[in-house]
């Protein structure tokens, strides 16, 4: 079935994400310089390089195992705020994915929603706090709406990536209330949140991987 998301597609996603995060490492670090501590690009690049190495070493048995490996790898290699948060995203996705080898659009929606809920439970950020949640929350809502209207997984994730992009762009004028940028108070306004950009990269590359395998 063309709409099925396989572990192969997900691995393609993760490798694309690693590639994109590596290409954008300087940009992410630059964003983090403005309102944080100039390491977000390095952090994400380190984490996804570790994931690539894990994938090269051998494929996990199924999707839950794949996501669990990714989550554990991020937690043990990234550090900072983004390590536990993205780690939680993948751990929760793993716990909420089917073990039978494939996901459909609805499965994906369920997993991603659980993953983002995990981030919120860990980090206590709400939409508007100027964090990755500002990209992830609208992404999940867009995904749900697309899936509900009968879109394919690829279409739905593409819509989610667009929503993430919008959410990320919208962080620019905000005054941060969570994470390192919150220490700046009013001075955090006028800069895009780096985590919202890395989150958007994750959704965009997922959309690319799904579109490729669907096409």
């Amino acid at each position, binding site marked *: 079935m063309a709409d099925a998301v396989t572990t192969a597609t997900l691995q393609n996603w993760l490798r694309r994400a690693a590639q994109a995060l590596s290409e954008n490492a300087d940009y992410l*670090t*630059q964003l983090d*310089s*403005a*309102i*944080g*501590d*100039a*390491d977000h690009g*390095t*952090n994400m690049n*380190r984490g996804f390089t570790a994931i690539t190495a894990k994938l090269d070493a051998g494929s996990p048995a199924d999707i839950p195992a794949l996501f669990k490996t990714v989550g554990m790898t991020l*937690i*043990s*290699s*990234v*550090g*900072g*705020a*983004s*390590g*536990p*948060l993205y780690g939680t995203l993948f751990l929760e996705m793993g716990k909420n994915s089917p073990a039978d080898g494939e996901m459909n659009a609805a499965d994906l929606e369920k997993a991603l929603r659980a993953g983002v809920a995990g981030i919120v439970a*860990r*980090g206590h950020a709400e939409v508007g706090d100027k964090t990755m949640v500002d990209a992830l929350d609208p992404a999940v809502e867009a995904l749900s709406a697309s899936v509900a209207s009968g879109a394919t997984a690829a279409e739905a994730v593409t819509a989610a990536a667009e929503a993430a992009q919008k959410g990320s762009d919208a962080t620019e004028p905000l005054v*941060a*209330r*969570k*994470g*390192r940028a*919150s*220490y*700046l*108070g009013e*001075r955090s306004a006028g800069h895009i949140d780096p985590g919202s950009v890395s989150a958007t990269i994750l959704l965009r590359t997922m959309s690319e991987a799904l579109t490729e395998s669907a096409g």
Partner: protein
Amino acid sequence: MKKLINAPATVLADALRGVEAAHPELEVDHENRLVLRPTAGTEGQVALVSGGGSGHEPLHSGFVGPGMLAAACAGEIFTSPTPDQMLAAAQKVNTGAGVLFIVKNYTGDVLNFEMAADLAGDEGIETASVLVADDVAVEDSTWTAGRRGIGGTVIVEKVAGAAAAEGRPLAEVAAVAEKVSKASRSMGVALTSCTVPSAGKPSFDLPEDQIEMGVGIHGEPGRTRKPLASAHDIAEELVSSITADLDFTGGPVIALLTGLGGTPLIELYVVYAEVAAALEQRGIEVARSLVGDYITSLDMAGCSLTLTLADDEVLRLWDAPVNTSGLRWGA
């Protein structure tokens, strides 16, 4: 970027080799990026584990040793270490009396230590955590991540370390740490940005005639940018910001003036002269003081002042022997 390093990616690993070479009395676990003191002789004592992003040396590795930390977990530059490091540290130093995690209040540090505490609990290691959030430059609010942990950390680690060395139980050591943390306030100023090695350029630009007031220790911009001022005026602003936040007239105070990494000691003494005068003017009695590099921000020029309201117990524990590379007396 001009630094005495081999490559940005190897700074931490290389520095840990240096710590190992310079301090044969310590153990360095390169795989887990830990600096540990030997557990022999600490049986039955609570073990203090701290850690955080690197680039703040001597904090934390320089405070590992008798009377202070049992282990320091080193993260990448300005990046919290990971839960597995913290768990490994807890496993190595726990002698049965439990482990106190001393955590600077940054989202990353908090989340990673939270996960570590869960993992340690799974392994049957009793843990408690104390959060240090002493930076008055950051507004305190339940809607935000709260204040940053900076210089107060040094005081908490010293005092709690002494309490642990007395053989007091985990809850009591944690309570002492909590008391010191709550009684500490800090404020910093930067004359220059620092340069994160992997970023390769300064985290912010600061013109020759401007300074950043209320900076943290990660190259994040401060609260306000101002014209370069005299040591007197800067000290006055540090002191007034801190004393506006907490009343320090009630008791003896421990004062810590730390350089941020790129400022020489002679300038710190110039500032400290003004700090001491500003405190005296306000009727605040400095019982103990430290002037030097204790918690830094890579190569940033600037300084940060910490005041801790002490009581007899805190002063006694402050004076207790400590034998680390960064802080040593009575031993």
